[in-house]
């Protein structure tokens, strides 16, 4: 009994000490910051992963994605950092919100005026993600990367007949005839559909104009390949949407060629939360601008570049 008590006491004391030291260490690491800026680094890598959205309220089971606000903050930080001479956008995204993509694209262009920006497309850099990539000085993609998909989508499920079948009434109370356009519980009449289509076409034109300007192509050339279809990296290179086939090394080599100096990279990421610091989450496992937000198109269809 005495032996068991001694063992139990030892165990509890040991656990208490370990947990206390872990908490103290986490607190200190958090205070000192998870700032992974490395002394001597001159090339910032900013990740753009998952669906691209502007800020929305988070939720525990919501989808991981990229917040345009967070990415823009990182881009501005890289632009203002005198030690950083180049930025690599590590893109692995199927696209997302038109507004969020445009916001990031404009921020990329602002950085590109002062520093070298290279877009490195990995598995996918399509639609809105391609819009962002096209804003860079140089685009590198794997030969099998999914890219292109210059198009806009705003599809949604319509439930008006479904609720009729179940004797459910939809009480339409609006002030403004088009207030509930896109509501899944109302019928999408031809007139309403034409209205929505006009908006989508407008967004599509913005997309085409931006890509044409960024890639030094004519709008006709871009329009001809803007059916929304995606291209493999090798195809995108033939069409002028991508500059080079390769990976991170190719991106770094381009920067070194432009600057004449060795490129020392560092990941620019948002500050770690306490729990991330507690578990010593490696920087490579955190996504730039990641947030947990509700799935898109929860209520009103939002034009998506996806």
């Amino acid at each position, binding site marked *: 009994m005495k032996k068991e008590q001694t063992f139990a006491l*030892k165990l509890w*004391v*040991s656990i208490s*000490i*370990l947990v206390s*030291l*872990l908490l*103290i*260490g*986490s607190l*200190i*690491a*958090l205070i*000192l*910051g*998870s*700032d*992974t*800026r*490395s*002394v*001597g*680094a001159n090339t910032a890598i900013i990740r753009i992963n998952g669906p691209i959205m502007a800020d929305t309220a988070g939720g525990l089971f919501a989808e991981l994605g990229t917040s345009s606000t967070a990415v823009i903050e990182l881009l501005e930080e890289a632009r203002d950092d005198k030690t950083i001479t180049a930025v690599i956008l590590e893109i692995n995204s199927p696209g997302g919100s038109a507004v969020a993509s445009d916001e990031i694209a404009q921020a990329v262009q602002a950085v590109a005026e002062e520093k070298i920006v290279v877009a490195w497309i990995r598995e996918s850099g399509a639609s809105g993600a391609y819009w962002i990539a096209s804003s860079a000085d140089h685009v590198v993609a794997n030969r099998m990367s999914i890219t292109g998909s210059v198009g806009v989508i705003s599809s949604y499920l319509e439930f008006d007949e479904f609720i009729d079948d179940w004797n459910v009434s939809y009480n339409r109370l609006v002030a403004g005839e088009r207030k509930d356009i896109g509501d899944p519980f109302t019928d999408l009449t031809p007139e309403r559909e034409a209205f929505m289509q006009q908006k989508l076409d407008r967004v599509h034109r913005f997309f085409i104009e931006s890509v044409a300007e960024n890639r030094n192509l004519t709008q006709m050339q871009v329009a001809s390949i803007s059916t929304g279809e995606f291209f493999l990296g090798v195809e995108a290179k033939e069409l002028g949407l991508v500059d080079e086939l390769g990976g991170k090394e190719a991106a770094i080599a381009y920067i070194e060629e432009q600057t004449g100096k060795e490129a*020392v*990279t*560092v*990941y620019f990421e948002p500050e*770690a939360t306490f729990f*991330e*610091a*507690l*578990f*010593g*989450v*490696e*920087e*490579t496992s955190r996504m730039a601008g990641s947030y947990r937000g509700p799935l898109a198109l929860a209520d009103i269809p939002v034009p998506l570049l996806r």
Partner: protein
Amino acid sequence: MKFASLLAPRTAKVVQDASFLRRLGSLLVDIAILDLFVTAPFAALFAPLLNQELSAITYSGREMAAVIALFLIVYAYFVLFEYLLRQTPGMMLLRTHLSGKDHIGAVMLRNSFILPVFPFILFWVIEPLAILFWKRGVLERVSNTRTVHQRSIIL
């Protein structure tokens, strides 16, 4: 019952200075535990330095503060365990324990070789050599403590 106990071999507990290998083993176990639980929060902070060549590494003020904090936490680990339990988890596993003065000052002194400052940094070389040849480190002699191993022998 009495007759059976007469036939049982007589044993005695012997306490002797722990061997170098046993102490090395317990230290390795402690390092593994430290790596898993205590130094993990600092991993992200030091990750960028690992990309650089050793000779090219220069620490910013923030990183230097983190290095010092890390060493202090490691120091606290050994001091707390040896003061409260007379054993670190590694020592528990290798069945060694602290003997001698149980004053906190003595425990802090015997573990002061961990501190990454001069002159304690010299003990990174002196202590292992002393333990290897004399089974007792210099700081242990100064602090009047020993690391011992208790075992049973058959008489």
